[in-house]
């Protein structure tokens, strides 16, 4: 068999359905073989970064579904591969499995600065779980199988397989054998210890039983190990409040009585105050990112820390643990949720205190949402997102971009469905939403998918409207247009004396753009148009775009200033 056939065979054997990509000189043979075999649904992005984010959408949204977990994208050598870099760096930050297959120039000219040659292995190495370059045709299948195993096993992450063009075209000889059924990767150094240590669990339970003011931090690992139900059971049984990291949101319904909402830089008052005053942090599948902890020297106080995490290199990295449980979060929660030693304690004083935190800015926030209009007379994103949440019952899938609207979604959308919130967290890549939503929709075709961006992020991957048009992807696009890079503007308002350097933007006619791609469009400028527009978009079969004219002066509070501790949280605007 030819190298190209083996690439496709390996992907077919792994159950791959969709390939996202962009062709070019060094990957043409694989595309040619795909055309002959017509074995995948091919989605052509308009930029390689878009293809990688689409593949991420598949990976992120297919958790807990029958769809294979690892999204696949393809690009040619040189600029094609380099255009993947941002989305691959994004995937490693968000523990998102992803397979990128890139064409490379022929082995005879590698490292001679050949046309469209880049050192893909060298560039990708620090931003992937593993990078491969098979150097003979009989290594191709094995490499792809190993790559898929590495991407998905343990903490997820991206892998790159860079295949020189001559290797793609090589033929195997008669002695070639590979059995995908019996194949097991030979990786003696691959760290994967999913089973929790029973003694540690026992110690953890003892600590939990003793705690007066515990708090659960629910991270991304709860979602990727489909452990939401067990988390809820555990929290209910032991009576412990839950705060969520950005990627932990939608693990359980966010309006659950024990939920404190999101924690961290733009977290809720109650989650942040609880974290300041807790005596025991029980962290599941998270990595104590600086957006969660604020200044580490001011984090945690005397609280003890139980850290359940599949990646051993995350334990004690930022926050010292009292009990470290290096294990699969799902397995640990399954044991904890059914642990007979765990006692339910009312913790009345703690919960009364939490109620005080909860009420601190509740009224002011509600008033702002009800007003719906900012100081410059335009719409507030808070109000739009609250309406969206009401109309969908919090049951639809939300794919957020990066910035103010993202934090507002995280704070004001009432997530009800497990794993229904996707965005770029660790890397904070503007422009992720539109292409990611394409992959999400393909992985979850029966659910309604909303892609929500600001005017800055939307224009970073606006070209993917082409893919949406061509492949008739039913995504509802909401554009929160305030004519600024809102989050940076917010920092400028709060910390740079209102000098708006590089944030105001003259925008194009989005209606005309939407029309050019054949996507129906509505513009919303007034409060009383919001609901009808959202309902029209929701009810429309196929892609739909709604542009909201938003108030540039809106800020999202609370906010923990960069470098500050959680206690330095800004709760209300100084006027």
């Amino acid at each position, binding site marked *: 068999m030819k190298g190209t056939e083996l690439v496709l065979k390996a992907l077919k054997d792994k159950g791959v359905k969709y390939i996202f990509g962009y062709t070019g000189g060094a990957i043409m043979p694989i595309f040619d073989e795909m055309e002959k075999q017509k074995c995948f649904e091919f989605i052509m992005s308009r930029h390689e970064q878009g293809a990688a984010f689409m593949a991420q959408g598949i990976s992120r949204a297919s958790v807990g579904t029958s769809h294979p977990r690892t999204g696949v994208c393809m690009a040619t050598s040189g600029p094609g591969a380099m255009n993947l870099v941002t989305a691959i760096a994004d995937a490693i930050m968000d523990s998102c499995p992803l397979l990128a297959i890139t064409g490379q120039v022929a082995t005879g000219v590698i490292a001679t600065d050949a046309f469209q040659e880049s050192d893909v292995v060298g560039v990708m*190495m620090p931003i992937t779980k*593993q990078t491969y370059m098979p150097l003979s045709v009989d290594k191709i299948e094995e490499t792809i199988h190993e790559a898929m195993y590495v991407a998905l096993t343990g903490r997820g992450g991206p892998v790159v397989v860079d295949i020189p063009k001559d290797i793609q075209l090589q033929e195997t000889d008669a002695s070639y054998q590979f059995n995908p059924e019996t194949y097991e990767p030979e990786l003696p150094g691959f*760290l994967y210890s999913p089973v929790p240590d029973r003694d540690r669990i026992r110690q953890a339970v003892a600590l939990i039983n003793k705690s007066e003011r515990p708090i659960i931090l629910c991270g991304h690992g709860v979602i990727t190990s489909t452990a939401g139900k067990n988390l809820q059971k555990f929290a209910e049984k032991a009576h412990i409040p839950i705060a969520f990291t950005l990627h932990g949101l939608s693990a359980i319904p966010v309006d659950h009585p024990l939920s404190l909402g999101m924690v961290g830089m733009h977290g809720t008052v109650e989650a942040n105050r609880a974290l300041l005053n807790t005596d025991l942090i029980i962290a599941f599948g998270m990595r104590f990112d600086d957006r969660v902890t604020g200044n580490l020297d001011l984090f945690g106080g005397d609280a003890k820390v139980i850290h359940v995490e599949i990646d*051993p*290199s995350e*334990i*004690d990295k930022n926050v010292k643990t009292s009990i470290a449980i290096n294990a699969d979060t799902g397995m640990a929660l399954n044991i904890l949720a059914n642990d007979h030693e765990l006692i339910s304690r009312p913790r009345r004083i703690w919960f009364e205190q939490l109620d005080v935190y909860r009420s601190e800015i509740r009224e002011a926030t509600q008033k702002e949402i009800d007003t719906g209009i900012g100081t410059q007379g335009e719409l507030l994103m808070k109000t739009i997102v609250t309406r969206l949440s009401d109309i969908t019952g919090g049951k639809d899938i939300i794919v957020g971009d990066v910035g103010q609207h993202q934090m507002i979604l995280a704070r004001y959308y009432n997530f009800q469905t497990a794993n229904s919130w996707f965005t770029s967290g660790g890397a904070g890549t503007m422009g992720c939403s539109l292409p990611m939503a394409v992959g999400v929709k393909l992985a979850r075709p029966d659910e309604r998918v909303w892609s929500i961006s600001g005017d800055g992020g939307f224009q970073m991957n606006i070209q993917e409207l082409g893919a949406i048009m061509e492949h008739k992807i039913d995504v509802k696009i909401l554009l929160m247009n305030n004519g600024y890079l809102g989050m940076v503007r917010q920092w400028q308002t709060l910390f740079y004396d209102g000098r708006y350097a590089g944030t105001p933007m003259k925008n194009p006619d989005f209606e005309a753009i939407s029309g050019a791609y054949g996507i129906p469009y509505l513009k919303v400028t007034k409060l009383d148009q919001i609901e009808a527009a959202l309902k029209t978009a929701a009810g429309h079969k196929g892609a739909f775009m709604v542009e909201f004219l938003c108030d540039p002066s809106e800020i999202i509070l609370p906010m923990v200033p960069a470098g500050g501790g959680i206690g330095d949280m800004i709760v209300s605007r100084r006027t």
Partner: protein
Amino acid sequence: MMTTAQTKRRAILAVMLDRSGVLNKISSLIRRKMINVDTITACPTQQPGITSMTLTLRENSDDKALQLVRQIEKLTEVISAKELDIDQSFWREVAIAKFEADSEHLERLGRNFNFEILDRQNHEVIVAQVAGTSQMIDNFLAEIGPDKIIEVARSGFTALEK
């Protein structure tokens, strides 16, 4: 920002699959953590396909060193990595020195040090190999005298736990 001098010397012993790129990964990880490497040595082990690598570096923070070891260990090719306890391990290196010495000087060196003469050019220029602790090699070179040394190559450390 003031940078503090990193004075605590450490050795990390890592065992890994002999695959291309792994040295690159380890060195780029160390660079990313802004640690300066003193020496790196790598050699095949008794087991085919498995390489052992000894790194020496300076880092004052125990936490940062532990984190580095864990991140090295996380690399797919790395089978194990640990920091060696200085008092519980042997550290040795090899040096090859080219120097000038007359027979009297050579005799004196021979009384104090164990070394092997690899080459002797014009009777006065010697190429010799010496192996041992870092201190011993320093002493050997001092004894030759800096003005007599033409060239020195040192291997960097290799280490083994007791």
